[in-house]
């Protein structure tokens, strides 16, 4: 078991490192002229500088060093929680992020929880409903939810609940009320994704012969659904929890922009607009870390929830057939 845990942790760290490296490569190797990009972010025209000034700038951004040196510098920095300095705002990136991550985490976690509840309820009802039209309708609802672009959902909610009904504020992050519409906007997508996966899994599970065994015992439909189908259907769906959390984080970019909430998502949007490379690198790294962490937790919990997977010692073998005198 310890070997399994250690293995998983090492794997998670490796993936995170690789994700950081890939993002670094995209941001620092892809642009034809990194200097121009970074000067633009800092609000300076490259042409307006004297050669001396240019050299000084280069040194400031670390562009006078080789790419490996820059990479090493960033990597060691990240390990110490130092993501460098924002080009457009001239403050440490880590300060920018820590000031905003609380709001985004609240948003993400609430949305993840709401979509867990809404998504599983929808999937449960869609597979439990016996009246065929209702079943078909409930099965199609998630496709609907996944088709609406989030900015559309957000704008629709604002138009209806803020401007028409005046129930919730259209913008800002003051108080719990301002959280409602952003969370709902994100959950429309994530709960639809979850429900689609769960419905598929439920359908597969319900056609398994052991469900027939359970029904043949005389268990009620709801007992079979809850005690036999639910767990077996939910287990494979657990693997998308990481994707789901990833979705809530990326959704925060659009949602925070539309609802003008301060958060990492809006920071990401602003820094891409101003091509603030260190901030973009930091945001991507933080998001990847969250994704990797959730996946790690799922991986570690999975063996506890699924008895078939035991990582103690190789694979479990079926006991040999025992001959009994009858």
């Amino acid at each position, binding site marked *: 078991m310890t070997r399994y845990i250690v293995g998983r942790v090492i794997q998670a760290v490796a*993936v*995170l490192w*690789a*994700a950081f490296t*890939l*993002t670094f490569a*995209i*941001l620092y190797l*892809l*642009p034809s002229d990194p200097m121009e*990009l970074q000067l633009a972010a800092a609000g300076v025209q490259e042409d307006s500088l004297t050669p001396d000034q240019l050299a000084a700038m280069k040194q400031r951004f670390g562009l006078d060093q080789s790419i490996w040196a820059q990479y090493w510098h960033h990597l060691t920095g990240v390990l110490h929680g130092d993501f460098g300095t924002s080009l457009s705002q001239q403050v440490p990136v880590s300060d920018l992020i820590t000031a905003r991550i609380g709001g985004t985490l609240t948003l993400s976690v609430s949305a993840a929880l709401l979509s867990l509840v809404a998504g599983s309820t929808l999937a449960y009802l869609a597979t439990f409903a016996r009246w065929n039209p209702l079943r078909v309708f409930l099965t199609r609802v998630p*496709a*609907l939810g*996944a*088709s*609406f*672009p*989030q*900015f*559309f959902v957000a*704008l*629709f909610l*604002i*138009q209806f609940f803020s*401007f028409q009904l005046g129930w919730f504020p259209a913008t800002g992050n003051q108080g719990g009320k301002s959280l409602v519409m952003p969370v709902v906007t994100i959950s429309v997508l994530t709960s639809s994704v979850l429900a689609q996966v769960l419905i598929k899994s439920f359908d597969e599970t*319900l*056609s398994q*012969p052991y*469900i*027939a065994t359970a*029904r043949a015992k005389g268990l009620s*439909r709801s007992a*079979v*659904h809850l005690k036999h189908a639910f767990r077996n259907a939910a287990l494979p769906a657990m693997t998308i929890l990481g*994707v789901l959390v*990833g*979705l809530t*984080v*990326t959704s925060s*970019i*659009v949602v925070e*922009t*539309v609802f003008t909430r301060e958060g990492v998502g809006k920071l*990401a*949007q602003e*820094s*891409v*607009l101003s*091509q603030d*490379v260190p901030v*973009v*690198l930091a*945001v*991507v790294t933080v*998001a*990847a870390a969250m*994704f*990797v962490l959730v*996946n790690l937790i799922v991986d570690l919990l999975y063996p506890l929830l699924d008895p078939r997977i035991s990582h103690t010692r190789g694979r479990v073998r079926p006991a040999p057939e025992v001959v009994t005198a009858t």
Partner: protein
Amino acid sequence: MSTAVADVVVEDALPADEPGGRRANLAANLVQLARKPVFLLAGLYVLFVVVSAFRPKLFTAQDPYETHPEAAAQAPGVHHLFGTDIYGRDLWTRVLYGSPLTIKATLIALAIALVAGLGLGIVAGFFGGIVDAVLMRGIDVLLAIPGLLLALSIVTALGYGTVPVAVAVGVAIVPGFARTTRAEVLRVKTLPYVEAARAGGASWGRVLLRHILPNSWGPVAVLAVLDAGVAIIAIASLSFLGFGAAPPAAEWGTLIADGRNYLVTAWWLSLLPGLFVALLVLGLNHISKTLQELTR
């Protein structure tokens, strides 16, 4: 609940005197599709949008950039299907003229995803072993960066515009294609008919081209249609966030973002183009679902 043991093992074949074969099979499938009204509706709508992307003049006589201050911010009506914006430009026309950019970006993104995803998936699934392990770890890494953020980093590096956005979105959906293709190739590779072909002396090249690819293609195609919708949303989102084509060219996302400021007074500026996009994605979604049911 569809439990209980099924009693249907198909032992009754098609009678010898009935027409069979590929053409009859195709015909039967088409008839089945034609009987689904929602599918037809979705197909027509998607077709309409794609055609409008290349020939917008077919569906509107107005100019997308001509301003009519006297007809500013008119609500949707007979003359202006989607109303007019604050400069009096016809919104319906603007939406249609926004199609080319978004549709082309979607096609570029899908092409990238298909070529790279199929390539990686086939290589990984077909060769297996260490090649597979290395490629799939690579895919894991790509998956670890949430799609939109990966796209944003690429946009940061490449700059704004339709092509960078298309490239960014394309790269972001590569992992899904690679995984699906690999899984299919792995599944088909071990099927008895592949073994039978090998035993019959067929080379791996032939087995790959004639057996594995045609039989792996179905789920990949279904995913491609579904991902076309995903790509449209992603591209619209990126242009909504302000990373798309520069004004006055108007991608759908940009139109919606501009209309945002007039939500109180002219709701249609944002919501109607949004609905237009949503219906397109919904249509693609439905087509993908129907195809999936058909191939099963």
